């Protein structure tokens, strides 16, 4: 015969204080677990969405990122004539030569500078990145000291708002537009005319050439041709792969940190659950004896106590996730060690993370409850009844 589910539920209710404390411990662990996963997810989402699968980035061989790269004008022209480049609606090829540099700008409200990416763009840069949309103002005029700022720059950096101006490269640049790029890394960038930037920063070379493929399958062709051309010493990467590579170190760091932390923390919470469950068994020795005498099987008793502990886990998991879901309102901005520039991303909760966190809390409940439950089910009827 089975012990009713309400028996486990009511037991938790009788010992409210203990239940609350145990659940609180577990909830905190689940909160940390979910928070780290959400952070890593947010980072990955931001950087993966930044690239498009059919775009190709060409940078100097082994330069790792656009900032370190250099593509001379002659080399850029050779890239522009590759036959695999798609053609736009106006009949022009979808290719853009860009300049990427870092500048230090102070954040609003503090005087602490942070490195941000300045991207010199051409006419086609916008079309190559459909996720980038102008939400306010207009595009900068070619040949003028005008710039547009990503929405997260406009919000967080001094002088980044529309109508304001920034000073770098011995010139004042007026912000004439704000663009929004959804959940991508472009939100932390400033864009302007590439030729003006090359003048201002005195850099006679481009950083990268970006183009859209005519057909997806032609990537290997164009990659081989570019990388084997003795005039070039450049490498071609799919844009998605390029951005994924840039987040590798950061994602690895977050993963190591997160897994170590949650493992250590979960030991604490499992111990809490174990103490609670051992006490629950110890306090109810005669009760267990009575149930056994009434004819409940060992299996049912094992199951009832395990259920109680799993309930603790479920409660802890739900409460932890409830609070973790509020984290989605926050945006984290930090330095990406690999590109050395500011990157803003937000906590992202997905169904997988929800399932993983709930699974994790159930495991904690199970591990904490299994030993006490086994002890309860193994009790000798006569001794248990005599104990009180």
């Amino acid at each position, binding site marked *: 015969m089975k012990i009713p589910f309400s028996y486990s539920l009511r037991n938790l209710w009788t010992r409210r204080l203990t239940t609350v404390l145990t659940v609180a411990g577990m909830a*905190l662990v689940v909160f*940390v677990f979910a928070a780290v996963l959400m952070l890593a997810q947010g980072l990955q989402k931001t950087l993966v969405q930044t690239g498009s699968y059919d775009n190709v980035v060409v940078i100097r061989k082994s330069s790792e990122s656009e900032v370190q790269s250099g593509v001379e004008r002659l080399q850029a022209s050779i890239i522009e004539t590759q036959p695999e480049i798609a053609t736009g609606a106006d009949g022009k090829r979808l290719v853009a030569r860009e300049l990427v540099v870092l500048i230090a700008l102070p954040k609003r409200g503090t005087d602490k500078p942070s490195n941000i990416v300045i991207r010199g763009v051409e006419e086609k840069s916008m079309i190559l990145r459909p996720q980038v949309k102008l939400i306010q103002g207009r595009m900068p005029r070619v040949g003028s000291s005008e710039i547009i700022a990503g929405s997260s720059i406009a919000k967080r950096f001094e002088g980044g708002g529309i109508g304001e101006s920034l000073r770098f490269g011995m010139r004042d640049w007026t912000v004439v537009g704000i663009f929004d790029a959804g959940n991508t890394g472009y939100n932390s960038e400033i864009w302007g005319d590439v030729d003006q930037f090359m003048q201002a920063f005195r850099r006679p070379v481009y950083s990268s050439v970006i183009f859209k493929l005519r057909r997806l399958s032609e990537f290997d062709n164009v990659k081989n041709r570019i990388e084997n051309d003795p005039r070039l010493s450049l490498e071609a990467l799919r844009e998605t792969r390029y951005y994924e590579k840039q987040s590798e170190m950061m994602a690895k760091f977050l993963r190591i940190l997160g897994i170590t932390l949650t493992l250590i923390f979960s030991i604490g919470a499992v*111990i809490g659950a174990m*103490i609670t469950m051992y*006490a629950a068994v110890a306090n109810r020795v005669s009760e267990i004896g009575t149930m056994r005498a009434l004819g409940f099987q060992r299996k049912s008793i094992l199951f009832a106590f395990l259920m109680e502990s799993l309930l603790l886990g479920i409660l802890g998991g739900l409460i932890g996730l409830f609070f973790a879901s509020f984290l989605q309102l926050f945006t984290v901005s*930090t330095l990406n060690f690999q590109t050395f520039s500011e990157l803003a991303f937000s906590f992202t909760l997905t169904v997988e993370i929800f399932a993983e966190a709930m699974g994790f809390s159930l495991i904690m409940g199970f591990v904490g409850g299994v030993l006490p439950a086994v002890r309860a089910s193994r009790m000798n009827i006569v001794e248990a009844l005599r104990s009180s």
Partner: protein
Amino acid sequence: MHVLRLIFKNSFRHKLRTFLTVLGVSIAILAFGLLRTVIDAWYAGVEASSANRLVTRNAISLIFPLPLSYKEKIRQIEGVKSVSYGTWFGGIYIDEKHFFANYAMEPEHYLAIYPEIIIPPDQRTAFYRDRKSAAVGRKLADRYGWKIGDTVTLRGTIFPGNWEFVIRGIYQGRDQNVDETAFFFHWEYLNETMKKTAPGRADQVGWYMVEIKNPNLAADVSVRIDRMFKNSLAETLTETEKAFNLSFISMTEAIILVIQLVSYVIILIIMAVVANTMAMTARERIGEYAVFKTLGFGGFHVAGLIFGESLFITMFGASIGILLTFPVAKIFAQQLSTYFPIFNVDPETIYLDIAAACLVGLSAACFPTWRALRIRIADGLRRIG
């Protein structure tokens, strides 16, 4: 005395429960100590900086170089004792995962400005003489098994090509907080190669290290240097070495904040666990407390018993945790030397450990004590389990 014995005996009445709680506390204190050490490791570069060194770099940002011609101009400025320069090389050994700091520098003045970098005299002379040579930190040499005379190839990211170096010197830090995982080589080697392959990028340096005569003049000298290059093609930004290092850390502030928050979360978790233990203990002993009260012991004694037991358990766990912190930190330092070149347990961390344990012990005892004091003797005696 009797009270202490009673606390001791009480603590071990439920051996399993006490064992589990002590285990939990020691793990939590260990984790807390390690997290604080991680934060200290983050700030290690700032701690190691000297007050009489300034860093001059391009005002736009670090990736822009300064012309070599600035060196003599800076040297003439009042208050400046000596000037050296370096460039971040950003070379990769094997692959990206094997990261270590590597830069080109002008060796003689650089090592004079950094007295905490100690190279044996014969190795130092050999390093000065050979333009293709490099000096590496002791920990880095241990990590890859490099010996004097070995050839090491780095793949350039900022400066293209494969670069070969011969190791001529292995340095040690004078103090514990000196980074012993860096790789230095001659700026001349870099510059001569750039002259051949990319003349436009020759005769440029990443930053100037300026040693000043008197640390109190740091602000004045910085202003003088920056004023000299105002409105030039490469405007400069000069700050103390400490401020320079801090500016890197402030960019990663968010991560430090997360680690700090998380280190408090572990304390909260363990607080819940200990409070749970104490609540259960007090509930089981309500009858005993009633007997104490009947015998004439005041609330003070009963409170002392509960607080004493709670503190005893947490302190016991905390001391195990603190003792474990040192060997575990040592293992961490070996495993994570790529991320944290310097990883030492600070005495302050131990004080924080003790403070956190006290806080856990005291707050866990509050609620059970309140319950034990409030209950009326008759109710307490009547109550079962």
